[in-house]
Every structure is written in structure tokens, then in C-alpha cells.
């Protein structure tokens, strides 16, 4: 399972996203690798799930994987709900 956090520069917001995702994954006991990317480099990346903000989500529409748009980057509840909606169910 590969999760990709995407933002404008791959330095700030996506790093924050990654931290929140990793913390939620740990809580859920889900094993996945979380990487960060900037919106320019994301075309070259492969992922099973993409996590980003709504404005980048529209730019990534051609990616054939679930794209989660996050409002509050540090809200673990929001992240958990959105991740659970796309994570494979057999772990539960």
C-alpha cells in the first residue's frame, strides 16, 4: 500500500499531511508507506491513494486512484474517516 501526500512544493503541507496520515495509520494498525510529492513531480509517482487539498485534487483527476481531499491537515478524525472510506476492508 502506497499513499502519496501532495502539495505545491513537497516541503510543508504535504509533510504535515504525511505526519497526520502516519499517525492515523498507526492507530488503525494499517501498514502502508507514505511519501510526499509536489504537484509538479506527482505525474511520475505511483500510488494507491493520493491525499491532498481540493485545488490540487482537480489537477490530479487523470490519476486512476482514490484521491482524498483534506480540509484540516491536522485533524486526525477527518483523516481517519476519509482513509477508512478507501482502505481495503479485510483488515477489519
Amino acid at each position, binding site marked *: 500500500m502506497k499513499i502519496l501526500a501532495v502539495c505545491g512544493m513537497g*516541503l510543508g503541507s504535504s509533510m504535515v499531511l504525511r505526519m497526520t496520515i502516519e499517525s492515523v495509520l498507526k492507530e488503525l494498525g494499517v501498514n502502508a508507506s507514505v511519501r510526499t510529492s509536489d504537484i509538479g513531480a506527482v505525474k511520475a509517482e505511483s500510488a494507491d491513494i493520493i491525499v491532498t*487539498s*481540493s485545488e490540487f485534487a482537480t489537477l490530479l483527476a487523470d490519476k486512476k486512484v482514490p484521491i482524498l481531499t483534506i*480540509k484540516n*491537515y*491536522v485533524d486526525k478524525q477527518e483523516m481517519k474517516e476519509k482513509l477508512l472510506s478507501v482502505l481495503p476492508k479485510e483488515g477489519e
Partner: protein
Amino acid sequence: MQLKQLSETTENDYSMELARLLSNQLRLPFCEEEIASITLFLLGVYSQTLPSADPSDSDDNSFVKNIVTDMLTSVDSAMGTSLRKDKELYAGLMLHVKPMVYRLLHDIPVQNYLIEDIKTQHPFAYYAAVMACNCLERASGTSVSVAEIGFIALHIGAALERQRTQPQFPEDCIRALVVCAGGIGTGKILQSRIEAELDNIRVISVVNSLRAQDAVRLGADIIISTIALQDPLVPCAVVHPLLPPADKSRLRDWLRDLPSLHKSVVSASSLREPIMALIQSRYHVAKPDSVNKLIDAMLLQLNPFLVQQIQGGHEHEPTIGSNTGKKVYRMTDVLTTDCILANCEAHNREEVVDRVGQLLVEAGKVEPRYLDAMKASLAKNGPYMVIVPGVALLHARPEDGVKQVCMSLITLKEGVAFGHPDNDPVDVAIAFGAVDQHQHLEALADLMRIFADDESMKVLRHANEASEIAKILEQAIVKSTDHPEKEGTL
């Protein structure tokens, strides 16, 4: 050049082979002219091997040799230089001129993005290159474009810089690997500029960006690159290839602030013996010399990480990242009271960037242009930087003028609309500067713990003094560290 002459070049063998493969694949025959045009393109591309290494086409080489010698002689006699003695220049030009002649004879254009900089900043080298290219024009019977002259100027400029440079390096100099996008010319001139301008740096090698990871193997302390690199293994600075004064002073500041270079380097030999002793206490070592060599190689690779381990332990020393071995900063290391301001006034998001960014400029941690880069990023990427309701996390890239890892925070008297559909208005703005992808992360994680803590955020928004905010931040960190299960394990 005639078809017959082309068919005698080594490159022609390759294009014949290419044509054969292609015609098998496509089931189309290739005529002689087609093959010749493939040969021309191959000839027009940089050859990475020295012509002299291949004795078989000595005629071809002697033609190039004569041209290069003529070029250098005419510059030397007209301008009083001694370029002919410079073996590196000669070798570089031999490599460069051979494909260049083919380009000239067959009107294959090249682009040179540096040409204006070369002309204005290195007029002497450019003028010398014009003279050198006169020889080329006479020999080839064609005219040489300004772009081509510019490339020759890079080679000559590098040679002139070499002559100015004292070859003596102090023992404790910093070992730098110069990385450039692909060519040899830009990297070489950057090397010469570094060696001429910064006397404590010794350039150990010039490589293209694909080989940047060799830094550790080559024993480099730092990388100085003309392009941004993904995850460099040693600290990396990105500069313009001609190292203009602004970049030079930025590089100086960066080197001074680079913690890992205040050397207490573990020299390979100091650890070799104890490691060998440990091995020998458990195993019989058949070939001690070979094992010693392997230990040295291993220590060389470990060196960048060991340096930092030894430096840890001071009270205010930033902590060590467990997985990267790089220096990481906690929020309290970087977000100092002078970088906090309460109750600011701003009317729009640009003014917010100015207020919060100015704190970093005044603290000497970013260049003023960093503010423009942050605004440009905001304009380009939209308001996504409002990552938490009411909170904007503003930043640009390391190469936009960051001198050191830094962070600043302001609270706003009245909320400002950033254009975010959910998280507007913004009343807390953070600006940060990163130097790579790692060193700012721990500070960012600290900040996230605070953002996730509603209670701390509420107090923070009501604080009237910078010192008050600093205290709140510190307490929030302590709180989240004391109760990691409550705050989550970010």
C-alpha cells in the same frame, strides 16, 4: 563533408547498426543519406571519451588538435595569457570542439541559456572566445554562432580562473562535490569560481546530477549544485553556475551556519583499529589488509553521520534525526521570541506574507526575495496553504533565499481572507524556511501538535505579547510530550 568521409567515422558504424535494427523492426529499408544524417546527429552530440583514447581515427583527431592548438595560440599571443599550458583546458576543448565542428559544418543549432550572463560577467573570457572562434571559422569556413562562442568562453573562463587560483589548500578545507545538470562546461566553471572565490573549499570532483549520490563515496562534506537535488546525502547548496556575488555571500553564510562542518570528523584511522580488534576477538582474519581497506571504505561512508553523533549532547544543540542522520531542529530551536509577533494588522494575504516573512528577514534567516517567492507560490498554487481552519502555513523553496532553517509566527488582530473555501479567515500565520527535505520536519511536527490542540490554539489567539506566545508554544510541546497517548503519536 561528403558521404564518403562520414561513412569512415566510428559514429557511422553505430548509425548503420541503428538503421539495421530500425529497418528490421519497421520493415523499411534505410538509404545511405538517411544513415548519414543519423551519423551527423551522433557526431554533433558530446563525446564523453577523450579523442586521444581512440588511436584508430587519428586523422580526425589531428584536425581537431590543430584547431584547438591554433585557437589557444592565437588567444595567448593576442591577450598575453598562457592558456596553452593548461592541460585541463586542452582536454576539455578537444572534447568540445570535435562535435562542435560537425555542428558547424552541418548547421546543427545549439542553445546556450547562459550566454547573456557570460557576456556581461566574463567579458574577457567571452572576448578571448571570439578570438578563438575566429580560428575555427577560418578552419571550417563557416561562421560560429554566439551560443557556440559562449560555450568556448566557459572553457576559457574556467582556465583563467584556474590560473588565478592558488593550488595550495589548507588541511581543514571543506571537500565539495560540484554537481551540474548534465554538461561538463557549467560544472567546470562553477568549480573554478568556487576555488577562486572561497578559499576554504576544495572541489574534489565535478559530476552530473545523476551521480550526485556519489558524494559519500567520494568523501565530500557538501554538494554545491547548479540544480536542485532530490534527497542529497550530504548538505547541498544550489547556486548559479557563475557564482554571482549574491550567491557567493549566501554560500559563505550557509557554510558558516552549517553545523556539521565545525569539524570533529571521525577520521577513518581512529576507528579502524578498534573495529579490527573487535573482529579479531571473534574471528580469524585471513587477509587483514583487505579487511582494513573494507573498514576504511565503510567508515568513509559513515563519516557524515558520525560527525553529527559526536556533536550532539550540548544543551541547545538541535537534536539528531534518528533515521536520516541529519541535523533536525525542534520548534523551540527555531521559533524564538524575535520571530513571533502578536496582534498584527494586515488587509490582504500579501500583507500577511510581508508581516510574517519580515520577521525572518530581520532575523537574518532569509533573504528579502524569499517574501516574493512565498507570494508567488501563494498566487500560483492558490490558498491550499491554509491547512487548518484559520491557520496559514507559508513558505517557498530552499533555493529562494533561505539562509538557515527558520520559522516565524504572527497572530492577526482581524482575520484575513485567503480564498480558502473552508478554512478562511486566517488569523494565525506561520512562515518557515527549509534548507532541505528533512531538517525542518521535527519543528513542523511540533507545530502540528499545537495546531491539533484546540485549547492551546485558543490561548495563543488571545495572547497579546510575543513572549506570551513563546511560552504557550513551549508549554504545549511539554504537554504533548508528557501525554503522547492523549495528543496522538505524531
